[in-house]
């Protein structure tokens, strides 16, 4: 009806501008003498079959009409959009490790199962004409679980409730940024009207930035106390980099009911460490356990609290009496207390361009000394390469330096600008004048530089891996693969819900986008047109 009226209005607009010009008006005193002038033949008809008069007034009125039309079309669409009984819900279910924690006798998954069931029942009860529900699982990834087609019918929904019990938490962490991404995608696609997130995590602050879709975050899981291992760090020999033990960081979330015992045993079950944990005021505790490899050790906290996946760890202490190197220099590694092996921690070579991207390289010069002492001209103060180095002796010994190639950074320069020590970052490498050589001061000086360089490089090499982290591809803890994820064991978060299940209903209320701006523009143009019409006379037609 409305569109018909607007169509008629448009037709009238065109017809008005198909009307013949009515002639300019002239006011004259000699009108009386025009009584015998014939009337214009053209004035006998009002309209002419021709294109509308494409004048400025025509375009102004056309713009006015277009604005009104746009406003009403937008209004109609907006009302249609908001009046229709439809709801498109997407449910995200957290299946990270903490959802298997014990929250007062029920696991997190069991708690949100009833919420999931309630949500589906609520949607089904509303009898909406246009409804769809989809479910995804998330931890460190988002995976589709039930499509909209699978949950289209009440039977499908009921089936999904039954199958929900089969969803098992995975020994992985939680990455809420995935939900953020999914919500942004939902906004872009525009179809999803509601999102339900079932998790033990409190509603994050960034939810406030999402007005549509409506995000319901009931957060039905209460707090539960937990203690767990939160970090395992190897302890390495400062010179050789060999693992000589490990350090444990343990965290208590919530109140600590009683003594928590830390027990470390070897593969044979013999305890290496068995003591009560001394908690700090901040809820943290640390323990340094000496160990020599190769060996596999089991770490256990008892009692471990609500979340069990952080109560155990299996770690491997690697073998290492000597530093394993890949020897490419003259002589052999054993001369300098080193050994060669299949997993070298260091490469020793003579070539400045013989470097490796994965393994740090020590480049040793060809040796030789100056006949006369040379001054140290410049050096980087406090650099590890210069530890315990006596500069007076060094100036007297005066090893043969080099001009450092591009990419190398001199650490120590003699008075001729030649480097007595240099490093480079990528790939990681260090240069010293020679292997330990000569006698007395010469040997002492070259040995200090040589071992300083080894220590410097070992510290920059990859840390020893005592354990593996469970991943999306390998989520099951096995052997020394453990689920050690930061804060996953924090089951003592204050619940912070956002909306309840009652919000899962079609959005009602006023349209958010009312075409006021279009109508306001139309009014402005209409006022302009009327003013011009009043002042412009026949020329404004």
């Amino acid at each position, binding site marked *: 009806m409305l569109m018909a009226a607007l169509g008629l209005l448009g037709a009238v607009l065109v017809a008005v501008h198909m009307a013949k*010009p*009515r*002639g*300019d*008006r*002239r*006011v*004259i*005193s*000699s*009108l*009386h*003498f*025009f*009584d*015998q*002038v*014939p*009337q*214009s*033949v*053209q*004035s006998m008809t009002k309209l002419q079959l021709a294109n509308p008069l494409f004048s400025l007034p025509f375009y102004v009125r056309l713009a006015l009409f277009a604005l009104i039309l746009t406003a009403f079309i937008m209004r109609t669409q907006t009302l249609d959009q908001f009046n229709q009984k439809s709801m498109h819900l997407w449910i995200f279910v957290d299946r990270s490790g903490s959802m298997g924690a014990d929250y007062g006798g029920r696991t997190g998954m069991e708690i949100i199962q009833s919420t999931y069931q309630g949500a589906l029942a609520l949607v089904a009860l509303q009898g909406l004409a246009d409804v769809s529900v989809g479910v995804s699982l998330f931890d460190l990834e988002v995976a589709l679980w039930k499509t909209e087609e699978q949950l289209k019918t009440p039977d499908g929904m009921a089936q999904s409730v039954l199958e929900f019990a089969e969803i098992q938490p995975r020994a992985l962490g939680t990455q809420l940024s995935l939900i953020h991404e999914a919500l942004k995608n939902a906004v872009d696609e525009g179809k999803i009207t509601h999102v339900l997130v079932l998790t033990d995590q409190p509603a994050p602050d960034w939810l406030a930035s999402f007005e549509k879709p409506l995000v319901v975050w009931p957060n039905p899981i209460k707090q539960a106390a937990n203690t767990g291992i939160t970090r395992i760090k190897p302890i390495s020999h400062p010179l050789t980099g060999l693992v000589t033990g490990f350090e444990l960081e343990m965290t208590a979330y919530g109140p600590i009911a009683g003594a928590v015992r830390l027990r470390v045993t070897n593969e044979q079950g013999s305890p290496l460490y068995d003591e009560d944990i001394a908690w700090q005021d901040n809820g943290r505790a640390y323990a340094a356990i000496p160990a020599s490899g190769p060996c596999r050790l089991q770490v256990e906290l008892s009692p471990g609290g609500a979340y069990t996946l952080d109560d155990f760890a299996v770690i491997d202490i690697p073998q290492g009496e000597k530093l394993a190197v890949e020897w490419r220099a003259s002589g052999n590694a054993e001369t300098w207390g080193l050994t060669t092996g299949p997993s070298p921690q260091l490469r020793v070579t003579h070539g400045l361009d013989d470097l490796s991207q994965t393994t740090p390289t020590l480049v040793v010069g060809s040796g030789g000394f100056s006949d006369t002492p040379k001054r140290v001209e410049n050096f980087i103060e406090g650099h590890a390469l210069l530890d315990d180095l006596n500069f007076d002796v060094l100036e007297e010994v005066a090893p043969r330096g080099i001009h450092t190639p591009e990419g190398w950074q001199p650490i120590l320069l003699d008075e001729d600008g030649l480097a007595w020590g240099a490093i480079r970052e990528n790939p990681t490498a260090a240069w010293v004048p020679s292997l330990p050589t000569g006698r007395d001061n010469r040997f002492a000086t070259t040995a200090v530089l040589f071992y300083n360089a080894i220590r410097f490089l070992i510290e920059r090499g990859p840390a020893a891996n005592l354990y593996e982290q469970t991943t999306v591809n390998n989520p099951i803890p096995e052997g020394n693969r453990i689920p050690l994820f930061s804060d996953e064991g924090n089951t003592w978060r204050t619940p912070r819900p956002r909306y309840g299940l009652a919000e899962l209903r079609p959005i009602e209320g006023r349209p958010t986008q009312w075409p006021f701006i279009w109508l306001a523009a139309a009014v402005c143009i209409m006022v302009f047109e009327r003013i011009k019409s009043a002042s412009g006379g026949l020329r404004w037609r």
Partner: protein
Amino acid sequence: MIDWRACPLSPTLLQRYRYRAGHQSCPSMAGGHLMRRKGAGMEFHEYTPFVPGDDIRRVDWAASARTGEEDAWLVRRFAAEEQTTLLISVDLRPTMSLPQNMPKALIALWLAEALAVAGLQGGDRVVLHRLFGEDRRGPVELKTPDRRRLHAGLRRLNEYRGATRFNMLSLPAFLPPASIWVLISDLYFPRDGQMKHLAQTMCSAQAGLRWLIVVELDTWRHERSLLGKGDLRLEGPEGQNLNNDGPERLFAIDEQQLDQVEARIHGHKQQFHQTTAHAGRDFTNWVWPNDANDPENFFRDQFLGDKLLHRIFMREH
């Protein structure tokens, strides 16, 4: 009725105009027209401030010195001229209210005012008369140069309300012998018995040695330029149209039509001239320019350049 405003010519300028005319004579005057004759005595009338154009010989130096002001020269005025009656009849029918940007009625009223001021300054008796429409209070008679009364009289004339009958009933009483009758009109008045009545009045006036001057205000050239060509809706004064106030007619205007209208106007005026030919009258024509939009300058140029009107204030040898 138009939006009247006072004549743009100052009284001082009009005084100069009159005095210059008073110092001129026209020996070639033909016909039985009245001319001012020099009076028998040079009777002192009043002192007035000296204005450019005054005869320096008439400055009274002793009287000027007594004022105590430099450059405040006083000129002696004499009642030398013979007093006459100047009857000014102004046509204020609706057609005179056009053209809109320079109405004929405005120019006519300014002309009446200018003639009245000049006449009154010379001691003439001035009568302002509305040519058409009832005027129960009769013409406005003025004997002294009182601008307030003059303007009130002009406003009264301007209070015209539509009637198109000649207003001649009381006219003979204001036209004594040897008077001057100036008639200002566009001559667009209807052709009927009233034109004959006007002609009779003019003839009887002429018979009494009265001087008749017709000032025709001619706007046709301007209106023709205004019309242009093409389809036009024509409207007359006071919103009249040619369809008895019915729907507006659309006229196809071209040069041929305009020529025909011009011929009709010319014929109409010719009929007036023929009807009043035996009355004997002088005739002057003020023609509106094509781009008439500056009434002040138009009036100034027309009035000061009109030699016929200038003769009203000349003296016969």
